[in-house]
């Protein structure tokens, strides 16, 4: 178990509440953006940016990634690399597929 003093925990709790507010706000923002007619590319980009911010907030604060150990960082870094490969390499292969 990680060693935190009660003061630190109280401080954490404050952070959690702030993060929660941010998440809620971002949810509302992303929904509102979706009602604007932005066109596909900007809409996708914006939505993914917002989602990534929300995701990072959850990961960094709720999951304490902001102060994690190197082993975990390395594991996740490798995972992230392969995740990106998995997301984009099949796609680019399809896009340059030989077609008549």
């Amino acid at each position: 178990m990680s060693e935190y003093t009660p003061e630190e925990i109280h401080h954490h709790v404050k952070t959690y509440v702030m993060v929660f507010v941010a998440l809620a706000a971002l949810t509302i923002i992303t929904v509102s953006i979706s009602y604007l007619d932005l066109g596909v590319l900007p809409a996708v980009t914006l939505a993914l940016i917002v989602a990534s911010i929300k995701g990072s907030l959850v990961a960094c604060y709720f999951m304490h990634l902001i102060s994690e150990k190197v082993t975990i960082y390395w594991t996740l870094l490798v995972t992230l690399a392969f995740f990106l490969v998995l997301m984009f390499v099949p796609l680019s292969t399809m896009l340059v597929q030989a077609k008549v």
Partner: protein
Amino acid sequence: MDIPFTVKERPDTGLYNGKLGIWLFLASEVMLFGGLFSAYVFLRTGAESWPVGSDILNVPMATLNTMFLITSSVTMVMSWASLKLNDFGKFKMYLGFTILLAFGFLVVKYFEYTAKFEHHLYPSTNNFLGIYFTMTGLHVLHVVGGIIVIFYFLVPGNKMWQSDPDRFVNRIEIVGLYWHFVDLVWIFLFPVFYLL
């Protein structure tokens, strides 16, 4: 002889076994959902036409669900913090809220699914609905799994708080990590299916 570092951290890695274990598990989950997201992008890019999610799906309901999960993530982490502060009563309260919110999520999802079926929108209708049902369905299974585990620690498993409190806190932390991950997946599912 007991296996070392189940409770205390190993000095050179700074981790106890369970924490490393759950992160490894989450790494594999990233790749699982990665495979599905990759399939989604692949299908969508290759499709001649792709429906706009908000035309078919219910955005307000999903927004509500997003709120449910976000809130449940906070209550989850609060319950862990309460344990850290030695406040067992608060811990139980927060964990209880977490379960309630998770059920709230499931109930909303149930109404969403049945509404789709009533309109004769099935997974087989088109690939958008197919991948929507598959991915959200798999996510729902994760939520159900989470509920079972959280319930275990809320009721039958909480005796460990007396016998081995440090270990109990660790376990709650681990469950928390899992639960936040489920939330995180939803944070991406939500815009991808409902808003884009």
